[in-house]
């Protein structure tokens, strides 16, 4: 039971990476993400403070140490992790009705796993494949019209919502082929330690890529908790809409701007 709980937490690592980047612009809902209720704000703020403490003592130093590794090693590691994430992205492309994208992502995964040696080299990118965009079960639930539910801050894992946390559970309920093979696959190549190592490494890689941007955000925020919450919710809304930032430009909260008195 304990093992399962640990895996559940770790399996959510990918969903924590939400504010690493972004994949789209939201037009799904005209609702502002301010409508996502912070039902457990007191508790959330407490866990947020705990996470900041853990980050200061453990995650940030580890991420800094990771950055000492040569750039090609970090790039290769990052490529392997991104390639593995395709195994969650592809079924979600299908579940969202994005069959063409699922095909492209499958092609990318096959090429990078074989020619790219287990994903170390992003050969597909050099061949002209379109930019890869991660998908997860939380996003699929959103695409299906499920509301986000209350905002949550999870211990260690950080910002989430009830919907996104439920989505993360799907990974360990058969939704992540890598989990299935490494935990239940009964094979000589992969076991649970590989799965755990992968998820931990995903977290470290994400943190290492964002050391400066987090520091900058924290230093210039007057309410860091509110800033992180806003970033997370805006990013999730956009990802659920499956629109690229470059496609811009329809902003979901246009109404907010209509009556602003400018200079």
């Amino acid at each position: 039971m304990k093992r399962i709980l640990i895996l559940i937490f770790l399996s959510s690592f990918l969903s924590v990476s939400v504010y690493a980047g972004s994949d789209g612009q939201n037009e799904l809902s005209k609702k502002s993400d301010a409508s996502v209720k912070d039902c457990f704000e007191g508790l959330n703020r407490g866990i947020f403070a705990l996470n900041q403490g853990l980050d200061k003592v453990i995650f940030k130093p580890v991420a800094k140490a990771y950055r000492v590794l040569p750039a090609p090693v970090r790039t290769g590691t990052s490529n392997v992790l991104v390639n593995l994430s395709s195994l969650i992205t592809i079924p979600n492309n299908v579940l969202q009705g994005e069959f063409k994208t699922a095909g492209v992502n499958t092609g990318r995964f096959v090429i990078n796993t074989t020619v790219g040696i287990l994903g170390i080299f992003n050969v597909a990118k050099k061949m002209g494949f379109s930019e890869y965009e991660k998908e997860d079960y939380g996003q699929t639930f959103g695409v299906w019209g499920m509301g986000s539910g209350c905002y949550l801050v999870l211990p260690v894992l950080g910002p989430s919502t009830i919907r996104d946390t439920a989505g993360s559970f799907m990974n360990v309920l058969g939704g992540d082929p890598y989990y299935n093979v490494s935990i239940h696959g009964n094979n000589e190549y992969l076991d649970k330690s590989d799965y755990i190592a992968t998820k931990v490494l995903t977290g470290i890689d994400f943190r290492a890529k964002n050391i400066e941007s987090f520091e900058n955000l924290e230093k210039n925020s007057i309410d860091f908790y509110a800033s992180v919450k806003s970033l997370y919710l805006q990013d999730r809304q956009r990802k659920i809409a499956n629109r690229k930032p470059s496609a811009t430009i329809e902003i979901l909260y246009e109404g907010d701007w209509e009556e602003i008195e400018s200079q």
Partner: protein
Amino acid sequence: MLTKKILKFLLLVSINFCFIPNSFAITPYLFVQETADEATEALNKRLSKEEKMEKLKIIAKKTVDVKGIGNYSLGAYRKTISDQQKDEYFEIFEQYFLKSFASRLAEYTDPKIRVDSQKKLNDKYTMVSSTLLATSEKAEIKIDWRVVTKNPDNPLIIDVIIEGVSLAKVQREEFNSIIQSNDGNINALFKTLREFVENK
């Protein structure tokens, strides 16, 4: 005959004069490109952080709609506070905004921004899309700029959207969170803004 020609000439000259101001109107696309170029110059690696911040504040004063952002950041509270509180707010907000804006950007060195396209949303706003080009360490970042075009001769930036995340919106939610955590007391926000300006 001559008088008629002179009159015609004067008429043409005056018509041309009427259109001259329009010829100075700058497109939001060019405005953002010029502003980005100016910011890149201010973020020259030879300058100290303090020098960068001073230059960025000067750029922000002439290219950013500080009052508009201030209004937006107040959210629903802008309708409920008194005129006196508004005056107090805008005075402290400008100082807060310039410091926060300059401090956020001063961390960057020699950024390269390419402006890609523009799209008019309505008479008041145009969105300009750009890309902060990748470096050996960092991937490229998409940056959109909401430009107020109410006065086409003097476009102003009112929001910057990084990878789809609106910074004005993040700021508004920070402000609202502070006010709500203090039982709707706007003075708590003023106090926090003042502390930021004075201490950080």
